[in-house]
Each structure stands twice: as structure tokens, then as C-alpha cells.
């Protein structure tokens, strides 16, 4: 049988109610019974005593006169009392005078004293019958106590009936109580079980009363609410953690994706020289499976030789320095390689260096190519200098040749002239004309040589120091050289004030002379009008020599600067080297020269030169804008 504490509350309630009711009824019934019995007995005793006394007094005369008949009649009055078993009147000697015995009961032996004796379910009452305080006889009453037993039985039946009725009421009320108390508890229990089963903390128990059960439901709901919010918090924390994990994974994936696309390999190492992480590029490069790298000592992964080669850089990075290096190292798995590395120290939260991140590129091929390039460069330089030397030799040769060839040519010219002068009259036929042709040819060759000398001389005279040349003076010199041509053509030359330039005066004279000379030489039908303009542009001097001459077709704008290129026949004299000289002069001093021209629209030759550094005191007083000076 289950212990009481384990049976359902419903039964408990029922049992408690029944037990309480029964106990209460029993106790009250019993106490009533006891009280009633005691009280009844006293009452009976008093009653019987009174009865005995009355009968005794009534029978006094009969006894005194020993009248059995009247005594018997007196006793007959006891007929009214059903429980009187017997009544006996004794004489003083103890013999029975009269008796009343409805049930055939014999009289007990008389006793001399009065009083009540309880004997065998009956009360014996003895009463002395006295006449004027002199005893004349005795009376005995035998009273059956069956009345009391009957009362008791009636009581018992009553109590039983009450018990049954109250038990029925108790069962009924327990059913109602069940509805009021147990049902809500059961509902609560079901709710709790449901919550436990489904973990659905949004459920709320129904509050049906304001008693303790109501409080319990409220507490339960409050508990559910707190569990729900805690559950929510927990779920949220879990979700956060999952999200953080996903983010971490995402970050790791991204790191790997990025490092996978990088040409260089990336690793992270700790202070203990162990690899913490390495990009796939690294394992691929070292020809190792990726799993065999993380956590391994670097020396084990790359080999002791390579580690020894990298050791100085490792020591430096662990001292907190960012290290960039190129080194050749012998790797265990892939042999000797040139690598370019960048080591960046990593720091723990306390700021101490706890390792480093390395970015590594295999530059073996690059180094090889570099070595090749260096070798090729060396060869190129050798070639270049030998070319420059041979070019220089050639120029020097051309320069010296054009100079030295003039000598014999001069002799040819002068002696041919001497021949005509001396023997002209003796020459017959075309001899004099032939000799004239010789002279003419020699002269042209001389002009050519002179121009060639001028052309080659521009760069041949490199050792002469440059000086500031006043271009106005150079222009005057050029004009004086061209005096005859200017006079003959009626040319008008107008010029802006010109700046100074760094160089040799002769070169600038020759530059201006050639440009002005060309303007006169290639003039149109009108007298030449030549204008020289000077300006500044982008930190350079820009000088323009424009004319109203015949102009130059655009397709020749480049060609005219090539030595010995001529656009015109013998009609216009010239060796075709003038503009080549101009270009050479301008370029030698770091400038450019070009032409803007159209046929019939005149020509404009433009050249630029770096601005000459003004003498210090001029610069101080001229107050030029600082940026203009800076541009020099």
C-alpha cells in the first residue's frame, strides 16, 4: 500500500475530511454518551431512591400492621415502571411481607442498611421502612439496567447514522473541493508538465481564485516569465555565440581566400619559433601538405639550414623591429631559393612581442633575371660606351678631316686662280673655262667643309666652359655677318630685347645667323621682314624667328633639320646644313627647335633654351618671382 504522502491530494483530502468528521462525531458522541450515562445514572439513583422512599412511606402502615395485602397493593403501583424487576417488602426479621415480581424475580436477601448496590446489570435499592423513626421493615427494589443499555444502543445507532451522513457529506464536499482545489492544482500540474515537456515558456496557468492557489498560479506564472526571459536571454546568448562563431569562421575563410589569391605566402609564428598559421600558398610553395605545418617548429618545416639563414631576421623581429630582407636560403623541401620577406612583430595584449607575421615571396627567378639584366646592362654599357667612343671618334675625325681637307683645297683654289691669272692669255679654247670649273668646285667643297666643320664643331668643343651669353650681342654679330645679304635684300629685322643664355657665343651667333640667313635666302617677292620675339614658357626661354618668306610645306617640317637635306636646287646657295647646325646648337644647350609654317605664309622657327642663371646681384635686385627662379 502506498504511503499516505504519495496518494493523490484528492484522496488525502477525502481521507482527512472523513477522519476528521468521524473523529469529531465519535468524540462528541462518546462524550455525550458518557455524560448522559453518568447524568442518567445519578438521575436514576435519585429517582430510584425517591421511589423507594415513597413506596416505603406508603407501605409503612401496611408493614406496621403486617398487612400483606395492602403492602402488595402498594407494590403494584410499580407497574408503571417497566424496568423494575422486583420489589420486596421485608419484615424486620427479614421475611418477605409482600413482593412484586413481574418477571418472576426472587427477592434478594434483605439488608439492614439503605443504599444502592449495582450487581449483575441491575441496581438493588434498599430502604428501611420506618414509623416515627422506628424501623418496622425493609424495602428492596431491583431495577433492570437494560434501559441504559438500550439508551446506549440508541446513541450508538444515532452516532453511526450521523457518521454515515456526514461521511456522505464529506465525500460530496470532497468532490466539490476537488473542483475548487484539486482541479486547479491538477491543471497547474498539467501546465507544468507541458512546459517541462515542450519547453514552451510562453504558456501561462489560469488563475481561478485569489487564495493560496491563486498565489501559487501567480508565482508559477512569474516563475515561467522569469524562466522565459532567462530562456530568451540564453537563446539570444546562444544565437550571439553562434553568430560570433559564424563570423569567426567567415573571417577565417576570408583570410584564407585573401591569402590564397596573394602571390606571396603568409605565415604567423610565435616567440617559440613555431608556426601558428600558414597560408595555403606557403605549404604549396614548400611542397608540404597543409596539415603538417601549423604547430610545427619553423626549423623543422624549412630545415636547419634555411632556419639559420633566417635566424638574424627572426631575432630582429622578435626584438620588436619590422624587418624587410632578401636572402638566399637552402630550404629542406625545395632547395636553395632567394626569398624576399617582410617580418612584422605581433604583440600580446600587454604589448610584448609574442611572435611575428611573415610575408614571403620567392624571388629566385627575379634574382636570376636581375643578374641577367645586370649582365645585359653591363654589356649594353660596354657597347654603348664603345659606340659613344666610336661616334666621338667619328665626329672628331669628321671635324679634323673637314678642317684638314680645307688646306689642300685652298691650295687647289688659289693655284687654279694663279694659273688663270698668270697664263690666262696663253690658254686656248675652253682651258680657262675648265679651270674656272675647278675653282668653282673647290670653292663649293670648301663651303661644305666649312659647314661640316661648324656642325661637328658644336659638339667637338665640349671641354670649353659655358658662359652667360647676351643673345642681343649675338644677334648683332650675326647681323653684321649677314650685312651684305641684308643690304642686298632690303631685309628689315625687328627684335624684342633678348635674354641671356648659357653656352658659347659663337654657337648662338651661328644659330641666329642661320635662321636669319634662311629667312633672307628663302624670301618671297617682297623684301624680307623678320621678327624676333622672346618670351618665357614653362621655365624656359622661347624665341621665335618669323619671316614673310616662301614658307615650308608641313611634310618637310622635320626633314629640313637633317644635315645636307636641301629642298631647293642650286638656285639658292647653301650646303643644307644650316638648320642641322641650329638644331645641334639648341639641343646641345638643352632646348628644342621646330618650325611652324605653310607654303606662301612665311615661316616661324621657334626654339627654347633653359633660362640662364642670372648673376647673383642681378637676381637680388631684379626681384623675380621665387617660383620662376625655382624653375631654373
Amino acid at each position, binding site marked *: 500500500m502506498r504511503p499516505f504522502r504519495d496518494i493523490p491530494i484528492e484522496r488525502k483530502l477525502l481521507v482527512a475530511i472523513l477522519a476528521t468528521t468521524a473523529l469529531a462525531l465519535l468524540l462528541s458522541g462518546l462524550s455525550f454518551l458518557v455524560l448522559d450515562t453518568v447524568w442518567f445514572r445519578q438521575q436514576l439513583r435519585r429517582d430510584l431512591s425517591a421511589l423507594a422512599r415513597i413506596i416505603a412511606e406508603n407501605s409503612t402502615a401496611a408493614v406496621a400492621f403486617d398487612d400483606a395485602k395492602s403492602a402488595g397493593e402498594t407494590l403494584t403501583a410499580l407497574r408503571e415502571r417497566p424496568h423494575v424487576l422486583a420489589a420486596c417488602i421485608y419484615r424486620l426479621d427479614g421475611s418477605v411481607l409482600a413482593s412484586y415480581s413481574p418477571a418472576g424475580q426472587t427477592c434478594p436477601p434483605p439488608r439492614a442498611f439503605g443504599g444502592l448496590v449495582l450487581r449483575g446489570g441491575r441496581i438493588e435499592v434498599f430502604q428501611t421502612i420506618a414509623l416515627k423513626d422506628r424501623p418496622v421493615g425493609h424495602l428492596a427494589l431491583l431495577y433492570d439496567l437494560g434501559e441504559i443499555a438500550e439508551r446506549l444502543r440508541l446513541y450508538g445507532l444515532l452516532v453511526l447514522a450521523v457518521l454515515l451522513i456526514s461521511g456522505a457529506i464529506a465525500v460530496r464536499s470532497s468532490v466539490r473541493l476537488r473542483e475548487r482545489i484539486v482541479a486547479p492544482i491538477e491543471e497547474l500540474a498539467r501546465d507544468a508538465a507541458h512546459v517541462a515537456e515542450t519547453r514552451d515558456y510562453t504558456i501561462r496557468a489560469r488563475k481561478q481564485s485569489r487564495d493560496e492557489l491563486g498565489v501559487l498560479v501567480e508565482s508559477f506564472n512569474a516563475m515561467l516569465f522569469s524562466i522565459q526571459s532567462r530562456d530568451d536571454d540564453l537563446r539570444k546568448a546562444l544565437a550571439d555565440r553562434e553568430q560570433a562563431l559564424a563570423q569567426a569562421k567567415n573571417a577565417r575563410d576570408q583570410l584564407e581566400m585573401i591569402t590564397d589569391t596573394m602571390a606571396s605566402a603568409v605565415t604567423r609564428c610565435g616567440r617559440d619559433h613555431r608556426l601558428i598559421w600558414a597560408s595555403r600558398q606557403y605549404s604549396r610553395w614548400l611542397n608540404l601538405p597543409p596539415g603538417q605545418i601549423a604547430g610545427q617548429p619553423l626549423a623543422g618545416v624549412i630545415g636547419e639550414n634555411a632556419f639559420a639563414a633566417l635566424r638574424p631576421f627572426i631575432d630582429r623581429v622578435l626584438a620588436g623591429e619590422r624587418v624587410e630582407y632578401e636572402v638566399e636560403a637552402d630550404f629542406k623541401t625545395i632547395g636553395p631559393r632567394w626569398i624576399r620577406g617582410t617580418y612584422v612583430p605581433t604583440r600580446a595584449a600587454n604589448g610584448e612581442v609574442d611572435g611575428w607575421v611573415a610575408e614571403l615571396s620567392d624571388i629566385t627567378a627575379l634574382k636570376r633575371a636581375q643578374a641577367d639584366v645586370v649582365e645585359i646592362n653591363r654589356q649594353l654599357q660596354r657597347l654603348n660606351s664603345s659606340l659613344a667612343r666610336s661616334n666621338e671618334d667619328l665626329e672628331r675625325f669628321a671635324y679634323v678631316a673637314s*678642317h684638314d681637307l680645307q*688646306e689642300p683645297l685652298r*691650295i687647289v683654289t*688659289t*693655284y687654279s686662280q694663279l694659273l688663270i691669272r698668270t697664263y690666262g692669255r696663253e690658254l686656248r679654247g675652253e682651258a680657262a673655262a675648265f679651270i674656272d670649273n675647278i675653282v668653282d668646285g673647290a*670653292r663649293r667643297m670648301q663651303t661644305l667643309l666649312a659647314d661640316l666643320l661648324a656642325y661637328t664643331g658644336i659638339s667637338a*668643343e665640349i671641354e*670649353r666652359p659655358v658662359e652667360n651669353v647676351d643673345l642681343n650681342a649675338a644677334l648683332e654679330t650675326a647681323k653684321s655677318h649677314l650685312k651684305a645679304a641684308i643690304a642686298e635684300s632690303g631685309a628689315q629685322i625687328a627684335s624684342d630685347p633678348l635674354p641671356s643664355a648659357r653656352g658659347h657665343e659663337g654657337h648662338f651667333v651661328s644659330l641666329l645667323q642661320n635662321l636669319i640667313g634662311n629667312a633672307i635666302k628663302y624670301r618671297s617677292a617682297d623684301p624680307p621682314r623678320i621678327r624676333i620675339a622672346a618670351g618665357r614658357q614653362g621655365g624656359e626661354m622661347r624665341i621665335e624667328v618669323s619671316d614673310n618668306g616662301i614658307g615650308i610645306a608641313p611634310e618637310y617640317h622635320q626633314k629640313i633639320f637633317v644635315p645636307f637635306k636641301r629642298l631647293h636646287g642650286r638656285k639658292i646657295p647653301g650646303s643644307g646644313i644650316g638648320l642641322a647646325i641650329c638644331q645641334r646648337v639648341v639641343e646641345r644647350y638643352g632646348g628644342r627647335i621646330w618650325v611652324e609654317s605653310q607654303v606662301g605664309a612665311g615661316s616661324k622657327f621657334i626654339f627654347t633654351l633653359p633660362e640662364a642663371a642670372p648673376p647673383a646681384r642681378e637676381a637680388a635686385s631684379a626681384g623675380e618671382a621665387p617660383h620662376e627662379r625655382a624653375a631654373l
Partner: protein
Amino acid sequence: MSAPRYKILVVEDNPSDVELLRLAFKQAGLDCELTVIGDGGDALDFVRRHSPADQPPDLAILDLNLPRRDGVEVLGGLRANPALSEVPVAVLSSASLPRERARVEALRIRRYIQKPSELDEFLKIGGQVKELLRQEK
């Protein structure tokens, strides 16, 4: 002829030019006696060995381009000899390179004559030398 007879030292390796000079002097009517040395080394020896007892030339005409020693060295030797240091010098040179020309112009010379390629121009040298000698007298 009462004109003084001039002694002229000509250091010139090209006989053609020496002939032209003679022609030019002749046409200018210059009465002169030419001492011609055609080699730089010989000319340097000559100016070094020249003693005060010898009569110094009235003018020295130097070519610059000479075999063995060039005209500038000869000029140096001439200037170094006290017996000759005051002799006026004319440089007669072909179209010289600018570098040489700058070197020569730094020396104390009377005249720099570029050998002309036109006969008439060359013959004018006779008159120029005559004028020079007259100034020196």
C-alpha cells in the same frame, strides 16, 4: 732701290704657301730676304740657337700646323730667347680649330692672318706685311 731690305723668318711647311707669300711680297714691292724653315723642330732649334751676334729678323711669320713641333712651341722658344723676344710675330694659319685659335690669341702676337682661299685675298697679305714692317720701323 733705296727701300730697306727686310729680313723675314718664315716657318711654313707648305712650299705652295711659301711660293704664294713670295708672290705676294713681290707684288707688294716688298724688298725682303726670307729665311724659310719647313719643320717645327728645326724652327725651334733655330730660335734657340740664335745668338745676339746674329742679326735678328724684322718679322717672324709662323704657321701653326707644323711637323714635329707646332707653331705655338716655336713661338714660345722665340719669346724665351732674349735676342729674339722683341721680334714681331704674325701667325699665318689655315682655318684653325677654335680651340687652337683661342690658344694663339692668348699669346702676344702682332697679327693673326687666316690663310685665304681666294688668290686675291692671299696676295693682299703682301701689303699687310709691308704696312706692319713700316709701323715697326
